[in-house]
Every structure is written in structure tokens, then in C-alpha cells.
């Protein structure tokens, strides 16, 4: 009897369609987000994450409607991220039916925004997304740095220290994407996942680089992640959620079946 480790399919949404880039560049179309979310819900996904990668204002309006449609049909937790910069953005998404919002660049620009958001809406709905890349050279002690703008912009911030700071400010969960792994399907960066999971007392979602089911297992058993997030292996039917859960259970991980 224990809390289940969560499997979270992530839908990158642009102008109302699900897309998934490989290393944030190559875009392939994967369908209507609500239809995809319903399919995952029926398969037993534990949560859904929508990541809005739309750059335009019109696209953001579309996202609000997408969240509203999703929330009337899918009854598992929904996290919405991408472009969350103000308390008003958070309120809009929560009112549309999101359960949590994920804050990324805005936390780097203005860390106090995380505190303000947590105080106003509660830590339970504030996820801080961290994009980390390994910056230490071979032979040096491991060091990971925070990057923003889809991995293009280094910040000079140490990922582990940053995670601790975000939690101190009120983050209720950390969504950790290891950038050098993302989309290349070599698995999560287990080093940074483990380092951050050990450093903070809130749940960690591992993200970035899942290519097979062993990667999910390693994320939990070696990376000590509380939840594992993946996109393309599910979107392109390489594996189903039930297959992933059965495999994790066979490896001794508590899952919700």
C-alpha cells in the first residue's frame, strides 16, 4: 500500500495542435490535444501536461479554449505550462480548468513571481519547470546549469541550487527537463534528476529523452523521480500507457493500474 509513481504524457501544443519537437527543432503533427488527452485518460494516464509553445496572442486564446474543452471531458489532473508570466495568466488557466500551472522562464526573470503565485493560489498548483543542461567537463564534478528559451539561453544558475530556491519560494513540484537529453531518446539525465530529488522535499517529475520503458524505470529507481513524463513514445504509439505501467510494476515500482 503506497503512493503510486505517476506517468504523465506531455502534449506540446502549438496553435491548438499537439506537436513534439526533436531537440526542440523538428516538428511533427500528432493531433487534437483534447482527443489525445482523452485517449491517454482512457489508457490510465495519471495526469496530463499541456505545454503551450505558441508564440502569438491568438494562439494563447486558443489554448484557453483547449484547456476548457479538456477539463469538461477528462477527469484527471491537468498541468498547463508555457508562457505563464503573471498571476492573471495563472488565474485564467485555473479558471479554464487547469489544476496546476508550470512556470519556467518567468521564474528565472523574476523569482519573486513564484512566491507571489504560491501565496495567492497555493503551492499545490505551482509547478516550476527547470530546463537543465550539464556544463561540467569530463573529469570535473557534475554541474548542471539552468537554460531558458527552449534551451538556447544559458543563465549561469546552478540547477540544484535553483531548485532549492524555487521550493523555498513556494514551488509545490519541480518539472525537471534535462535538455541535452531531450528528444534524443537516450533517457533522462539521471544524475541531475537524482541530485535535485535528493536536494528538495517536493515531488520531482523527470522529463526529457525517453526512448523506451527502461528509461521510465530508471527515472524512478535511479533518478528517484516521483513522476515520469514522456511525449513521443506515447504520441507515436511506440508504447501504450498500460504497457509502460505493466513494465514498471514488473520492475517493482508501485503504479496505478
Amino acid at each position, binding site marked *: *500500500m*503506497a*503512493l*503510486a*509513481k*505517476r506517468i504523465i504524457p506531455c502534449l506540446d501544443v502549438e496553435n491548438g495542435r499537439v506537436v513534439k519537437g526533436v531537440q526542440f527543432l523538428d516538428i511533427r503533427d500528432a493531433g487534437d490535444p483534447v482527443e489525445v488527452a482523452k485517449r491517454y*485518460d482512457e489508457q490510465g494516464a*495519471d495526469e496530463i501536461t499541456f505545454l503551450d509553445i505558441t508564440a502569438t496572442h491568438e494562439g494563447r486564446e486558443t489554448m484557453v479554449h483547449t484547456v*476548457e474543452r479538456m*477539463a*469538461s*471531458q477528462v*477527469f*484527471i*489532473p491537468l498541468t498547463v505550462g508555457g508562457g505563464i508570466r503573471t498571476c492573471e495568466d495563472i488565474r485564467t488557466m*485555473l*479558471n*479554464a*480548468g*487547469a*489544476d496546476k500551472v508550470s512556470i519556467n522562464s518567468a521564474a528565472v526573470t523574476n523569482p519573486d513571481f513564484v512566491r507571489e503565485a504560491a501565496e495567492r*493560489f*497555493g*503551492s*499545490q*498548483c505551482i509547478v516550476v519547470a527547470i530546463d537543465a543542461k550539464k556544463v561540467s567537463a569530463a573529469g570535473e564534478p557534475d554541474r548542471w546549469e539552468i537554460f531558458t528559451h527552449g534551451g538556447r539561453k544559458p543563465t549561469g544558475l546552478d540547477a540544484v541550487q535553483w531548485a532549492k530556491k524555487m521550493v523555498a519560494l513556494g514551488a*509545490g*513540484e519541480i518539472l525537471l527537463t534535462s535538455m541535452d537529453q531531450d528528444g534524443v531518446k537516450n533517457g533522462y539525465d539521471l544524475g541531475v534528476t537524482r541530485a535535485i530529488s535528493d536536494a528538495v*522535499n*517536493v*515531488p*520531482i517529475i523527470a522529463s526529457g529523452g525517453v526512448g523506451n520503458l527502461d528509461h521510465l524505470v530508471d527515472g524512478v529507481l535511479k533518478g528517484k523521480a*516521483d*513522476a515520469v513524463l514522456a511525449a513521443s513514445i506515447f504520441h507515436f504509439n511506440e508504447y501504450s500507457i498500460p504497457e509502460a505501467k505493466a513494465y514498471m510494476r514488473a520492475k517493482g515500482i508501485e503504479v*496505478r493500474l
Partner: protein
Amino acid sequence: MSTIAVIDYGMGNLHSVAKALEHVQPGVKVLVTSDPKQVANADRVLLPGVGAIRDCMAEIYKQGVDKEVAEAIRSGRPFLGICVGYQALMQRSEENGGVDCLGEFEGTVNYFGDHLKDDAGERLKVPHMGWNEVQQTGDHPLWQGIENGSRFYFVHSYYVKAAQRQQVAATCNYGVDFDVAQARDNVFAVQFHPEKSHSAGLQLLKNFINWDGKP
């Protein structure tokens, strides 16, 4: 037609619970409201809640929700508390340095602690976030059609410990054993989020809509 008042006191996302009620019982009238008249006239009343207990209790008193809740409970109409809406029914929470609550149920709301471990010695994170197994303590109309041990979705850092053990309708374990559902006459309250708990949660909401308020 049955009318359900979801009490809106400015705390959290009420869209989900309203949509879930409409989904399980098409045609049911759900009013997300802070109007005492609408709450008084509804056939059933739901008290939701997320966030910090101090803010919740402050809004509850400021908007007169305490009186609405007390009246709804005394009237015998089916009443459901969810998450902080359950915690608010207890006597006191240790969150925010200690906050007095409505005292409808005897017992307290306690912090999980920063050094929580499971039986195998693995560290447990706080908040308790995700799907955990809910052990029903006995029959209740709200458990109808829900298998004992079903997983429900939780997100909370404080847990209820009920003083009247005969009122406990379900328990859960996360480093400690704690109470996740409590029932007395026409009142049922749960720590988890039925509106986010897929089929088991939707079944509980359906049971609430069909409940006559008798144990």
C-alpha cells in the same frame, strides 16, 4: 431536478468539480455560488477548497460561508466536503501556525512532517501528491460501486486525524496512517479530489448526487 450548490468562496478551481458533476449526471443543475439564498435552496451542498487553511478560513468567515455550512448540515441535506473543504470541518489545523476551523467534526489537521519515511526507509516527499489507495472502513452509500482499495488523487501537505473513530469512512497511509473520508448523518467529507480521480472519483460524485443523506 436536483440542484447542487458548489460553495464559491474564492478558493481554487471550481470549474472541475462542476464539470465532473454535470458529466456524471447530465441534466443536474450545478450552481457555483456564494449566494446564501442559492445555497439554502439547493438540494445538496458541496464545500470545496484548496490552498492554505488560514486564507480559506478567512474567506469562509468574511463571506458568511460558516453560517451557510452550519445551516446546510443542520438541515439534513446531503453535504460533501472536498480536500480543504474537509479540513475546514475539523476543529483546528496546525497549518499557518495554528488556525481554528469550523468544528463540525472533532479532531485536528496535522502536518506530514519533513522527515517522512515509508516502511522501507525511503524518504517521502511533501505534499502527498498523486494516486494512493483508499481503505474503506465499512459500507456507506457513497462507496457504492467503488472497490475497496481503489486509488484516488491527492494533493495535500496536512492530514486529518479524526477524534470520533466511528465516523471515519476511509483511511490511507503515507508514512503515517491518516483519515481520508469521514461521515456523520448527512455529511460526507473526503481529503482526495473525486473530480480528478477518474472512474472511482466520478462514481463517488454520482453516488453523492443520488444520496438521500442517510448513512
